């Protein structure tokens, strides 16, 4: 294993030091491992806090800034943050209008955010929570951990962020987050495993002519292994899975997301196929993102996330955003 790191223990703090040096608009609390907007809290605005394991960059710290998150809590690589971080961040962004926790649905994330939310409540911070669970590769059921949260997190963070910026109350922002999540679906495909620094080697081995279908964002194997295939076919597998779960129509926001090790030129190849698929179904790719947004370290592969737009959602998506990794309109 070769990585651009100083030691497997210090990856996350070293990277946070880099973020602090690179982004004067951010304030990085290295001791507590929280990344804030420089001017947090914004009085009267709902504070948005998200977090999760590291290794998914730019998620979440790359989305801290005007029009999106107020703070992010990066855990260790692929390990959800501890409650302390979330409690600290929640205090730090509470401008009197309460705090929204945006949580991807993983057992660890949910438990740690819940524990933090309880302490916040005890300590007088009003907390709402949006749970993101958009991954159609996982069958939802009462008896399981439920669907994973993946790409839709970016949509939820962007749109709730835009709404919070208007001064909307916590309940409304939380409800909007739930609505965005409900209208979004994702599916991921891996061409290679990633290598977790502390593990020192690839999480799984994949033959030279095999891919993993229905992967998450933690370098875990997918639901099934399949023969490698042209981009057109892999895209169709992903889009069919999405479409079967949430019929695609009307204007949609679509993200073709790289898993970290896939060149942008390939993501555009996939996007061309996604756009063609959508048109075939009578849907319109009205807004789009192509690039690395929710990654799995150095994994090669892609995920596609679709959100059925409404006028309100389109407006919130188009609203100005000023973060390290998403930036437009101001």
């Amino acid at each position, binding site marked *: 294993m070769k990585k651009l790191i100083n030691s497997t223990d210090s990856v996350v703090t070293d990277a946070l030091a880099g973020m602090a040096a690179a982004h004067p608009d951010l304030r990085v609390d290295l001791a507590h491992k929280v990344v804030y907007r420089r001017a947090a809290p914004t009085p009267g605005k709902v504070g948005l806090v998200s977090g999760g394991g590291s290794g998914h960059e730019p998620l979440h710290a790359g989305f801290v800034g005007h029009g999106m998150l107020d703070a992010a809590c990066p855990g260790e690589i692929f390990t959800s943050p501890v*409650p302390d971080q979330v409690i600290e961040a929640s205090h730090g962004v509470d401008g009197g209008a309460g705090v929204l926790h945006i949580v991807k649905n993983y057992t660890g994330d949910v*438990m740690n955010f819940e524990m933090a939310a309880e302490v916040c409540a005890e300590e007088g911070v009003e907390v709402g929570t949006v749970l993101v669970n958009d991954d159609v590769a996982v069958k939802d059921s009462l008896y399981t951990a439920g669907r994973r949260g993946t790409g839709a997190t970016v949509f939820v963070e962007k749109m709730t962020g835009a709404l919070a910026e208007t001064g909307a109350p916590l309940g409304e922002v939380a409800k909007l987050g739930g609505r965005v999540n409900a209208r979004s679906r994702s599916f991921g495909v891996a061409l290679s495993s990633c290598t977790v620094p502390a593990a020192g080697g690839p999480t799984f081995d994949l033959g030279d002519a095999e891919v993993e279908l229905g992967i998450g964002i933690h370098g875990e194997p997918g*639901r099934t292994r399949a023969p490698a295939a042209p981009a057109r076919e892999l895209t169709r597998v992903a889009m069919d899975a999405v479409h079967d779960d949430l019929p695609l129509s009307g204007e949609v926001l679509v993200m073709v997301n790289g898993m970290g090790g896939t060149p942008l030129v390939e993501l555009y190849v996939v996007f061309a196929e996604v756009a063609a698929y959508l048109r075939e179904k009578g849907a319109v790719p009205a807004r789009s993102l192509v690039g690395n947004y929710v990654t799995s370290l150095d994994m090669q592969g892609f995920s596609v996330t679709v959100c059925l737009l409404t006028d309100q959602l389109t407006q919130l998506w188009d609203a100005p955003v000023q973060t390290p990794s998403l930036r437009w309109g101001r």
Partner: protein
Amino acid sequence: MDARFFTAWVEETARAVAAGRDRLTRLDAAIGDADHGTNLDRGFTAVREALSAAFPGTPGAVLTLTGTTLIRKVGGASGPLYGTVFRRMGAVLTAARREGPGEPAGHGPAGWSSPPGAGYRPEAPEDPEEEVTVTLADLAAAFEAGLAGVRKLGGAQEGDKTMVDALAPATRALSGAVRAGRGAREVFDAALAAAREGAVATVPLMARKGRASYLGERSIGHEDPGAASTVLLFAALRAAAGG
């Protein structure tokens, strides 16, 4: 068993986790995200530091500090879950010292940092000079409470392929042996054997909770990493008892 015994148990667990770290991570790579060994090792390293800094004087305080530290340092699924096990056990043993064996009040997951305002510091023993010991029956009650805490927090049943599959039978075996009047050695042997059997029995199961559940049928054929780390807890318990 006094604070020294419980400190020894936790430190022995920390050693076993450090030694088993790569194996646990490899188990997690197969059906999870390749961090379970790293997570627990980070947590128990912090626990050792916390114990040698605070030097808690009662069995309850040792375990409460252990649990709190795990929650504060581990993250992921195993942090809150193991943290809850130790915090619940600590609460029972602290109560046992005051009131004899029994269920402590209101220390569900909701109360992991209670009492409010106390931050995460463990309660100080009322009189550090007083030598506090607990019985095997207290310990059995503590494990029952720990298990109940994990069940409530994680919602897993036995057979869901989680740490519960080792913790539940081990707790049952331990309680049973205590009720049957066995001595510490035999009690801990029984618990360890049951934990091992439970962990091995996770191999053919399909996961229904935690990250491994996303794999569906592909989770079959692998030992659950959390069940494997639970075995280390019981092996350390026997070792601490001079096993």
